């Protein structure tokens, strides 16, 4: 038996690759796992050639081992294939914790792996307090909660994109790598997936914009979008929006900023009537100067803003347009 605490003996990090290219968020999950203090082993699922393409890159991290979890049936992602493969490797490695980045792929199958093994899972975690206490946001980011996972190990944790720094990953002397055939029965994979595609060519590349004026639910009606456009014009800024505005068709989908839209890092991001739900914030928190105008002084957007005005945007925006003329 290891002399270490049985509650925290080994952390498995599940890295994500697509066609042999690592998802950057995997490094954030790795940094999170390393911060927990226990030894870390990386598992990367995929077809052999895909795993081979990323093994050495992963082995540069300060970890005990990198496991290529290989099977031809894992070449393309399916929920059933990945659930089988991960449930088996987690059972075999018997870690105390399993850490994923909270990507759309993780969201699709990590809860199913935890349910199959009947183990606790905390999703979209933003910080670790101790081996069983994790911080996650609730009520659209309006509050944070310390939650304790209960029941036998391993405990599953998915970490919010951007909550841990990829560049904080500790490098090592070159970790050993090994291949493990994934225990996948292809006959039990019910899903078949086609190649990913984009709906339409993105006409607007918001990631290159220097200034962005972005609108949210607080704009209230489609006829008010014009007011935001006038402000954007006066600031020589691109217009953008949060998801509900694009869902409603008030601005085209290609103007959407957030986890399902574009990720931007302009010099200035002005959020008009945007509450600051995490799905939006992950797409814009890299902006150099963030300005928030919102009628609710407790809106989460103010937590990340450099400048804030708690007030009626329908009074403030016309006054700003006027002030910009001088």
């Amino acid at each position, binding site marked *: 038996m290891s002399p270490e605490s049985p509650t925290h003996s080994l952390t498995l990090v599940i890295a994500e690759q697509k066609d042999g290219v690592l998802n950057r968020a995997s490094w954030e999950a790795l940094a999170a796992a390393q911060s927990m203090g226990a030894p870390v082993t990386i598992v990367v699922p995929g077809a052999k050639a895909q795993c081979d393409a990323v093994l050495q890159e992963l082995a540069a991290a300060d970890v005990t081992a990198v496991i290529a979890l290989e099977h031809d049936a894992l070449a393309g992602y399916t*929920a059933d294939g990945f659930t089988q493969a991960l449930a088996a490797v987690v059972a075999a490695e018997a870690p105390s914790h399993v850490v994923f980045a909270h990507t759309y792929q993780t969201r699709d199958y990590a809860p*199913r792996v935890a349910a199959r093994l009947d183990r606790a899972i905390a999703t979209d975690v933003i910080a670790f307090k101790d081996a069983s206490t994790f911080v996650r946001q*609730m009520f659209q980011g309006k509050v944070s909660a310390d939650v304790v996972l*209960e029941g036998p190990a391993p405990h599953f944790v998915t970490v919010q994109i951007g909550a841990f720094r990829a560049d904080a990953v500790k490098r090592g002397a070159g970790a050993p790598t090994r291949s493990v055939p994934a225990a996948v029965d292809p006959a039990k994979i019910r899903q078949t997936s086609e190649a990913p595609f984009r709906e339409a060519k993105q006409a607007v590349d918001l990631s290159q914009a220097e200034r962005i004026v972005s609108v949210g639910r607080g704009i209230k009606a489609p006829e008010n979008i014009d007011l935001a456009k006038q402000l954007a014009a006066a600031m020589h800024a691109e217009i953008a929006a949060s998801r*509900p505005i694009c869902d*409603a068709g008030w601005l085209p989908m290609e103007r959407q900023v957030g986890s399902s839209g574009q990720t931007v890092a302009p010099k200035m991001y002005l959020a008009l009537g945007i509450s600051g739900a995490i799905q939006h914030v992950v797409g814009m928190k890299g902006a150099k100067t963030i300005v928030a105008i919102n009628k609710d002084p407790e809106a989460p957007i103010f937590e990340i803003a450099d400048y804030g005005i708690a007030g009626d945007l329908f009074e403030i925006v016309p006054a700003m347009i006027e002030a910009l003329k001088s």
Partner: protein
Amino acid sequence: MKIAVCIKQVVTREWQVRVNDEKTWVRDADASWELNEPDAYALEEGLRLKEKHGGEVVVISAGPARATQVIREALARGADRAIHVEGDHLATADAFVVADALAAALKDEHIDLVLTGLQSDDQGFAQVGVVLAEKLNMAHSTIIMEVQVESDQLKVKRELEGGWFQWISMPLPAVLTIQSGINQLRYATLKGIMAAKKKEIRVVSATAGSPSRQRIVSIYLPQKSKQTRMITGTASEAAKELVRALREDARVF
């Protein structure tokens, strides 16, 4: 086709969240409530599939007595009947407990397709649909933006990050978690509201299923990650000062 739509009652987006004295939940005794937004899209998708393919839409909610409000609303929008798995503990339960409660009530219903929102606006686990699929031994897919049904096959458009999508096929029965914006929501008509009064709501008690795996020990307002300069004054004063600060201090243009 028999469709079940799992819905949750959540506090309205406008409600000012206040933490209770024990810091273990929010002070929601005086809150206003609404149908969780992604669940509303799941319900709409279920109603559209029924209109196209025939069958039945059964709406199901695991929650305390007050959840009747959103069940009635779903019936008024067009669901045929409802199951209310009632239990006070379900208001704050973790995803395993909720999924267990739903699975127990659905297992003898011979459902072809289960729809639910991709996550709730309160705890936001994004787990219930996926865990429910495991408990019902059904195929699943998440974050769905289009649903096509052909005989016993499903073809769904799954959203990926950054504007990418992917088509996934799978056999029925299946569980799908629906993304907001998949369709245009309908609202209840007066006729629908009247008709809903005659529709069945079967109330069942939540049985002891999975033990809770997640416990909230403390809820608090988030720590600020930045020093925010709040600009006050009249709209005109605040606007002028903001423009000045952006020009001269932040130098964004």
